[in-house]
């Protein structure tokens, strides 16, 4: 594949502070055994891309631990493979320590050397807040065939789906797919018709991308989307590519909770995990299979390996190493790795971060629209 990947691991951290306090958006756990970066990485690898730069900014310990040498994505390579691109002090002129990589453009400027050293013709830029399983090979092929400078992957959605989303970028394209408008949209705009939103995945010709970045440095631009793309819509060749598969945007605790539970829908799982030859790969952990004890009652739930279930679990997402004690009831919950639910505890609409301890007999409840969140390592 004549393309290299570039993943922005931190760019949407601020939208979901509860879960990104101790980690990057990329390393946000999702779907029992994944982290969000797995979707971006698997999409690249499944398209035959073997060189991926991962731009990190802060809080990246969990991400580095997850990625390791890249072996689990078959990216442990002599040529290419995973390149972690952490910030460095002299990343760009007038850098001040509190402003390292605060925007996409600044990050791109800082990793210019990675981009220019790539011998591939195209770059795939991907954020980590989008959950999808997309055939990027097809997108890249279309991109090359159209002679596009930049192709932005979009998804047509009903504005109803956006009610939890603070802002999205709306893309309008003409009949040939050429982008004619590119604007930020807030949920308060109250539109009724279906809209085409950016999935924060784009393909750029490498030389064109370098030109854009150099131009941004020369003019002191700060916004990639508005000052660079927005101003060039008329002259340069920007195209949209509509994605037909599953798409979810994680940008608030509420939407994280909602799309987690959406995985209980078999159709969603089929479109995300069941596509032949496009598996979602993740870090392998050495855990025993899950054990259901006599008296366990589990219904409509997704469960990862390494759990021991003695109580009742319903409509829930259970991550690796969770224990649900005897007589406990867990309904409509998302329990991250190694959560311990004591005997007789009752949880309803609760999201627990990793290593949470719920003592025997505790009763906790949130609401379908707003889950009760318990931070990492907390005992209740």
């Amino acid at each position, binding site marked *: 594949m004549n393309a290299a990947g570039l993943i922005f691991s931190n760019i949407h951290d601020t939208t979901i502070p509860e879960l990104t306090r101790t980690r990057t958006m990329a390393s946000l756990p999702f779907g*029992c055994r994944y982290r969000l970066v797995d979707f971006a990485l698997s999409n690249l690898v499944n398209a035959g891309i073997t060189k991926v730069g991962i731009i990190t900014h802060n809080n990246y310990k969990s991400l580095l631990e997850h990625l390791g040498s890249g072996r689990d994505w078959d990216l442990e390579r002599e040529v290419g493979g995973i390149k972690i691109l952490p910030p460095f002090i002299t990343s760009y002129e007038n850098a001040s320590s509190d402003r390292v990589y605060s925007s996409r453009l600044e990050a791109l400027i800082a990793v210019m050397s990675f981009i220019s050293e790539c011998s591939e013709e195209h770059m795939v830029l991907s954020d980590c807040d989008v959950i999808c399983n997309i055939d990027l090979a097809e997108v890249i092929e279309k991109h090359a065939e159209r002679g596009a400078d930049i192709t932005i992957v979009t998804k047509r959605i009903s504005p109803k789906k956006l009610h939890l989303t603070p802002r999205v970028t709306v893309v309008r394209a003409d009949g040939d797919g050429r982008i004619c408008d590119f604007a930020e949209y807030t949920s308060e705009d109250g539109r009724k018709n279906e809209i085409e939103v950016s999935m924060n995945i784009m393909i750029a010709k490498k030389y064109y991308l370098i030109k854009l970045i150099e131009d941004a440095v020369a003019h002191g631009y700060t916004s990639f989307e508005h000052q660079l793309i927005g101003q060039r819509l008329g002259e340069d060749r920007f195209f949209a590519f509509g994605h037909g598969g599953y798409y979810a945007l994680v940008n608030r605790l509420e939407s994280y909770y909602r799309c987690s539970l959406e995985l209980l829908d078999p159709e969603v799982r089929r479109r995300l995990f069941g596509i032949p030859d496009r598996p979602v790969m993740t870090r392998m952990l050495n855990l025993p*299979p899950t*054990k*259901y004890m006599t008296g366990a009652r589990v219904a409509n739930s997704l469960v990862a390996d*390494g759990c021991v279930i003695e109580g009742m679990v319903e409509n829930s997402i259970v991550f690796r190493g969770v224990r649900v004690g005897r007589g406990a009831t867990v309904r409509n919950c998302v329990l991250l790795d190694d959560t311990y639910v004591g005997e007789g505890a009752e949880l309803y609409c609760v999201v627990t971060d990793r290593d949470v301890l719920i003592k025997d007999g505790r009763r906790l409840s949130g609401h379908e629209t707003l889950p009760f969140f318990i931070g990492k390592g907390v005992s209740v």
Partner: protein
Amino acid sequence: MPKKKKEWIAMLLAGGQGSRLCSLTGKIAKSAVKFGGKYRIIDFTLTNCVNSGIDTVGVLTQYQPHLLNEYMGTGVPWDLERIWGGLKILPPYQRQHGADWYRSTANAIYQNIDFINRYAPDYVIILSGDHIYRMDYRKMLEYHKEKNSDCTIAVLDVPLSETGRFGIMSTDPDGRIIKFIEKPKIPESTKASMGIYIFSKEKLISYLEADDADAESSNDFGKNVIPSILAAGENLYAYEFEGYWKDVGTVSSLWEANMDMLGPEPRLNLNDKVWSIYSRQDSRPPQHIGRLAVVENSVVTEGCEIYGSVINCVLGSGVRVMSGASVRDSVIMDDVLISEGASVDCAIVDTGATIGAGARVGAPRDESLPPFEVEVTVIGAGVFVPSGVEVTPHEKLIMV
């Protein structure tokens, strides 16, 4: 990396066919047979090596090695990818003066004396890749050194009724072996050999060379090498192991060992983090338990989808149990489909098999029988059991 001498290395015999496992070893070596949902039998011995601090393991392969070789790869899952040592696969090979298959256990090691000498170890531990157990070999090595032993054999106290299946050792109060009888009719002791030997290297090589020179010998550790060491009056000691150990060489023992993982206080507890078993993992989505599913007293691996009833079972990855299907007291390996309304009882269903709608496999367990007397039905890899068909206990369906 300096090529330092090693204190000890392991030689793991994994070339056996395991013909008593019927179709389960039709296309794969016995050591590569799936166990406990996500493991293969060899994982237990490899994990024991690593957790005992052994960093060089020669794995002798011969029968149907492809899947086993692919599975072991360069040893990464067991942390055995090392610059000097690590996991090394040792197939039979050609030499200047001819070539030979591994004719037997002792002959296989004999043919790899050069490999052993490369690492100049003081001790060599001989293991086999077809037992389920967790053991710290370091304690056995300590014992070997303490007794100033030439050869130490790990033994397990077995019930008197089972002694006829093992090599039985009689020892003096100090643990020194004074008598060794292979599968005795009238046992003098209940100490059974576990097929684990620690040799001081020089003794191992000299006895292997003598054994090879003996035209009468069938070159087997249990039958020939150990008796001749005993006859020569060398220091031969028995190391008593306490804990779970099972030879899974037969269909019923394989089934029984899987069942040992179940229950509130399982005999084989793999959730113990101190000695977790390493294995090569598969990237599969999480398991989904459907709205009307019943899953009790079972072990379930990633990628499974359960809509029916699963009780007292061990399920491998990607198993689908459709609604109205019932699976009980069974071992189901990877990617098996159990269709609507089918029932499976007391069976081992191998990888990729399909049980058609309404088919019946095996018969419900007779609780009055001890586990080893349960008749286990085997469905071979990739076999399709058509809808409505009944497969009775003891029938073995294999792919043709």
